[in-house]
């Protein structure tokens, strides 16, 4: 189909639709990873912030917050992990807004590529970034005395839940990024929304210690379910009674169902948005 026959054969590769989709997704993922590697500030943020959080929370609050049946460092870690990956997934939003602003989304949209590939690439590379963050936090956690008290399989399942939830959440943020269109606004909005949902939870304190309205919120909060599930899988739960709400009683199921629901709703919405969005 090429006009002038150049020195090169520019015929597209043969291949199935699935193969092309995977190839497009990988191409965009690679682009984002190169970008991360070349932005030292971004990488430093992804590496240093988790270290700082682990050290600050465990050392500052470690002596003053009591948890039944375990010490605060053990209890805290799942909360820090969850908070960090949830914040990490907001990057999908600001990056989509940035790409839209810079016009590169227009370039992608005029290419015969799979329309979901840009979003797949975006959420994939944020998954990689979150995996790096989690790894660093765990290493730091081990240094300050945190231990996994269950099996290796259980440990992997816990890490899997953290990444699954953050991956699902990054699709929500990607849609938000394309709708709001301003990287700065996305960052501000995510702080205003994410601080409350991560702090009004069981991430840093037992929800039973919270005043009544906040306690109810915390015990239905999906972030609490994530933290609860991860604590359970890592064996960091202590002996405090589990709050009597369905999400807290069935934390692992809640995270699985919640993540699946987010993906089912927001993947199609985000792809549809992408197919209509254009700079300016």
């Amino acid at each position, binding site marked *: *189909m*090429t*006009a*002038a026959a*150049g*020195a*090169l*054969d*520019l015929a*597209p*590769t043969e*291949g199935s639709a699935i193969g*092309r989709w995977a*190839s*497009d997704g990988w*191409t*965009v993922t*690679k*682009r984002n990873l*190169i*970008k991360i590697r*070349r*932005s030292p500030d971004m990488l430093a943020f992804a590496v240093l912030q988790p270290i700082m959080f682990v050290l600050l929370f465990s050392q500052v609050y470690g002596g003053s917050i009591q948890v039944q049946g375990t010490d605060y460092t053990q209890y805290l870690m799942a909360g820090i992990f969850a908070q960090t990956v949830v914040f990490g997934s907001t990057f999908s939003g600001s990056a989509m807004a940035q790409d839209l602003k*810079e*016009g*590169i989304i*227009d*370039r*992608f*949209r*005029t*290419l*015969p*590529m799979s329309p979901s*590939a840009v979003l797949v690439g975006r959420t994939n590379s944020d998954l990689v970034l979150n995996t790096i963050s989690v790894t660093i936090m765990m290493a730091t956690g081990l240094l300050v005395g945190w231990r996994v008290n269950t099996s290796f399989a259980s440990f992997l399942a816990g890490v899997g839940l953290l990444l699954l939830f953050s991956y699902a959440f990054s699709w929500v943020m990607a849609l938000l990024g394309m709708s709001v269109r301003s990287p700065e606004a996305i960052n501000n909005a995510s702080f205003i929304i994410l601080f409350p949902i991560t702090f009004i939870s069981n991430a840093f304190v037992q929800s039973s210690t919270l005043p009544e309205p906040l306690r109810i919120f915390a015990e239905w909060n999906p972030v609490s379910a994530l933290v609860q599930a991860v604590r359970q899988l890592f064996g960091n739960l202590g002996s405090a009674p589990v709050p009597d709400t369905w999400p807290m009683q069935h934390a692992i199921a809640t995270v699985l169902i919640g993540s699946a629901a987010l993906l089912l709703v927001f993947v199609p919405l985000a792809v549809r948005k992408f197919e*209509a969005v*254009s*700079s*300016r």
Partner: protein
Amino acid sequence: MSFPPNNSSPLNPVSEGRRDPLIQARGLTKVYKSKSGPVYALNGLDIAVPQGTVKALLGPNGAGKTTAVKVLTTLIKPDAGTAVIDRFDVLQRPKDVRRIIGVSGQYSAVDENLTGIENLRMVGRLYHLPAPAARRRAAELIEQFDLADAGNRPVKGYSGGMRRRLDLAGALVNEPRVLFLDEPTTGLDPRSRLALWDVIKSLVAAGTTLLLTTQYLEEADQLADSVAVIDGGKVIAEGTSDQLKAMIGGHRVAVALVEGFDAGVARDVLARYGSGEVQTASDGRSLEVAVTEGPSALQHVLADLAAAGIELHDAGIRRPTLDDVFLKLTGHMAEAGQEKADAGSAQ
């Protein structure tokens, strides 16, 4: 080349033989809501670009140029009208359209953090070229666009002209049959502009069909076979740049005198053969008048000036510039409305 003056507007499209247009748009309409009511970014735009030709969409900011390109390149859907690129309807077969077009926008759509070569390889891969072909094509384009020295550096450090060239190279990865360039030289310094014109001219010489938008009249004049002047989201005049110039009335006879004190006599001579008022430039020695019949008027003027013993630096027939055309057609200057985004002006 001379065209009879034509006072009716718009002109008929240039006749291009029997080939079907490669780009064909009919009645494109795009409406945006605004607080003060609907704004027509496109208001029944018709365009036809025959294979192997260059069409310029000429108009000020807000005339609908970028919106037109976005509709034709599948980026946005029109509210009404149809657009077909080489048999493929942009609404029905967007993916087929994307396979055969190349687009370079007003704002360079390149990734700052990738190197020039990485940018082009990525685009190649997204056209589903096999990896080795994408690599070779990237190397070829980097060379062709004079970016070889910078090819392995992140785009962050590129100048505006280099970014534009890279962006244009990105639009050519698949050797597109149809190329869209949205204000390709806006914001470039004159030297980079001339360089980019050369690149575009060589592409066109190789047979690429090109739709170009510009607010530079000179650019349309330099690059396009046919110019569509657009304003308020529709074509208000169309033709070759010569036809457009002819449209606002014949020629102008211009003379430059050696001595300023001859101006009085020269003015009388020009007035005798001119059809309008004689204009004298601020230097007092350059005079100009509109005439109905260019060459014969010039002959008469020269003969009379010679008889009066007046020495000339220069003399000739000048056609009106496209600036004159725009002012005549729209009643406002082409450069008006700079601050407005290209979302459609309400005029």
